[in-house]
């Protein structure tokens, strides 16, 4: 290393990116180190579960008079829950107190509480990815023993009614790199988002274009829209909005969906080691394409786009289409929800070269604090909140879309309600079988994916994709140590 004799800070000042140069070697070491440096937390064994204490017939009133505390994220799902909470208290005699925080701060709040080990909140909302961070340290209660205990769970619960891919997503062995769908059930699916194209039909009709069926077509379509829409009476309109901020949330929606359809992977298990492979040829090509599309046909300030800018631009008629959560379009499409409400339609998005419709999903789930002092009452709440009655009511009367239960999606009232969202249900049915978590489970998910978003921004800013992604791989390895 030519600079090795200079103080580090000089490198930092003069050639910021020079640390990337070290990566070639670091990646070599790192692969082994990465796996060995991720110790596993205590895994709660099923026989230890407090669920075993529950015997006799199932009884909703078992914990009559108890009080539990919930930590909730400000969300339409939460609104539907709050509206129905009295029904739960009437049914069980349990009162629920809750604290509510907006999403940008919610997980920090939850992490601090779980980290402190104080058990302030008995139940809370979390995403499937959070299981990878919160599960290994033993912060989450395994709910499998509860579900399987007929004394604890009401006979109507119908666990299998929840889509299998969703159940699997919260089900993990806590072993780094091991696929989902084994071990404990660390959270219960509650509501979810699949990532699709949502577009403004008025623009598409006027310009006579149709949603793209391949990635190359998508890039071209976005460019066409950017070029032609402003001249067709849509002032300042551009082709496509996606998230672009320096957050893990930039990677997981449209980007990860299309990345996977094109054959991209995040990690590969090589022997005992989990190796980041975002620098593969397929990946480099995709990053270049995506960055080019956003640069040419995306919003001017793309690197500062959170989900709400994406939704806002669609609603305000600035973005012709978005590749993001299907429900983001749904909320903009409701009457009074935006200036263009009623004009949006859904499409599964471009297929992969092999016809793949793999779709990444975000699942709002409910979890139980392993340190909770009220587990039995908390479990009554959780099975009620993820049960058929509440979820059906929440989907029809509230805005609990997408439903996690097949019975709710098939419900005629729900179908009627969704009918004015053009192709929403068709799209849903087209992708639901292929909608799953497309990331490899590992506890440094947030570090790695935040770094990933930073690298995508750099490529967007003009950096060489191959070099940037090589550096990313090295940084992920370092961060895991």
């Amino acid at each position: 290393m030519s600079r090795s004799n200079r103080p580090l800070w000089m490198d930092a000042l003069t050639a910021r990116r020079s640390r990337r140069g070290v990566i070639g070697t670091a990646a070599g070491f790192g692969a082994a180190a990465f796996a060995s440096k991720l110790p596993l937390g205590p895994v709660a064994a099923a026989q230890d579960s407090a669920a075993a204490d529950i015997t006799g017939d199932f009884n909703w009133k078992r914990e009559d008079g108890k009080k539990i505390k919930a930590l909730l994220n400000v969300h339409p799902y939460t609104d539907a829950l709050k509206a129905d909470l009295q029904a739960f208290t009437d049914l069980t005699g349990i009162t629920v107190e809750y604290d509510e925080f907006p999403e940008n701060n919610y997980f920090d709040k939850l992490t601090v509480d779980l980290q402190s080990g104080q058990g302030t909140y008995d139940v809370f909302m979390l995403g499937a990815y959070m299981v990878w961070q919160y599960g290994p340290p033993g912060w989450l209660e395994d709910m499998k023993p509860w579900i399987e205990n007929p004394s604890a769970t009401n006979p109507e619960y119908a666990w299998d009614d929840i889509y299998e891919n969703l159940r699997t997503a919260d089900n993990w062995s806590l072993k780094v790199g091991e696929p989902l769908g084994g071990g404990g059930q660390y959270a219960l699916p509650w509501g979810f988002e699949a990532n699709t194209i949502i577009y403004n039909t008025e623009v598409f009709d006027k310009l006579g274009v149709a949603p793209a069926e391949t990635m190359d077509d998508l890039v071209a379509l976005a460019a066409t829209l950017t070029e032609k829409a402003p001249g067709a009476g849509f002032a300042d309109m551009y082709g496509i909005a996606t998230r672009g901020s320096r957050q893990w949330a930039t990677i997981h929606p449209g980007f990860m969906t299309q990345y996977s359809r094109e054959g991209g992977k995040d990690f590969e298990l090589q022997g005992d080691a989990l190796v980041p492979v975002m620098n593969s040829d397929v990946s480099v090509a995709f990053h270049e394409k995506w960055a080019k599309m956003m640069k040419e046909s995306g919003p001017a300030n793309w690197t500062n786009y959170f989900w709400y800018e994406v939704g806002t631009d669609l609603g305000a008629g600035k973005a012709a289409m978005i590749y993001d959560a299907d429900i983001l379009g749904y909320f903009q499409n409701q009457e009074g929800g935006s200036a263009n409400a009623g004009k949006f339609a859904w499409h599964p998005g471009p297929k992969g070269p092999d016809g793949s419709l793999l779709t990444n999903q975000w699942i709002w789930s409910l979890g139980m604090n392993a340190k909770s002092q009220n587990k039995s009452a908390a479990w009554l709440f959780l099975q009620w909140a993820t049960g058929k009655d509440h979820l059906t009511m929440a989907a029809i009367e509230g805005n609990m879309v997408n439903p996690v239960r097949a019975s709710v999606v098939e419900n005629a009232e729900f179908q009627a309600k969704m009918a004015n969202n053009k192709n929403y249900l068709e799209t849903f049915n087209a992708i639901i079988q292929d909608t799953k978590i497309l990331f490899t489970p590992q506890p440094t998910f947030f570090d790695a994916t935040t770094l990933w978003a930073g690298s995508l921004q750099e490529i967007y800013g003009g950096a060489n994709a191959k070099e940037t992604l090589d550096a990313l791989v090295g940084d992920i390895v370092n961060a895991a140590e």
Partner: protein
Amino acid sequence: MATDKPSQQVHQQAIPEAQGMAVAASGPAVDPDARPRSIGGIGLDLLTIAYFAFALFPIIWILMLSFKSQDQLFTTYFRFDPTLDSYKAVLGLSSTTESVPFMKYFLNSLIASFGAVAVSLLVGVPAAYAFARYQFKGANDMLFTLLSFRFAPELMVIIPVYVIYQKIGLFDRHLGLIWVYQLITLPLIVWILRSYFQDLTPELEQSAMLDGYNRWQALVKVVVPLVKPGIAAAALLAFIFAWNSFIFPFILTGSNAQTVTVGALAFMGGAKPRYNVTAAAALISLIPPLVLALSIQRYLVRGLTFGAVKG
């Protein structure tokens, strides 16, 4: 000027205000009669207006935002159909389940900020007096320790404080906030008042004591009234910083003691970001510091004059 400015009696440098301002202006303005209506004067007025346009535009824009409806939020600039919906949502007058108990948070903020400033004044005024008037062993170390809390990143203490509060039951309690706000308010108040006391000649207490007051009475009845402007200015600044604090109330409270800074952000979540409601919440939470500032305006600049800098 200013019969309400007792400290002038003892501050040798004090001069009539108008004159002071005239000389301070670095122009031909030394002669007050020559000042108005000159070309240069108009130019300087325009510069003043330019700065205030920059400073006030965002606030005017926030005001406009607070009167916009959700569907006009992102499609209109200056022309829109004003509505009071955002204020109704903040004040809890709309019936949707999306409402946030903002007025409760407002009250919480008042309790925590006033409480914090009151505690800081109660313990800070005697301490500032001691640091100004006495040379005693360890004084410098104690003073610097006190001030160094102002250097600590808030995050550095937040998790230990969280764990302690959970254990001793101060989590989500007003008292917990009042205590942790001392990190913000106490150093500021001691800093400003200590130098303020130093500006007062000790002969003041001595003559009061010759008049038959004991030392404590001399302090309370003679000295403290003289530093009132300093106390008012320091208390206002401390109040504003406590009122605006975000990270402490965010981590250390739940639904019971949550404050307006955290509460206003809650409108940014959900299906759509409700900037309009957040704007209304920000404006409503502007009221207490504004009322305070207006009520002590005559003290503010003068209070800082002697306080913040000397020593």
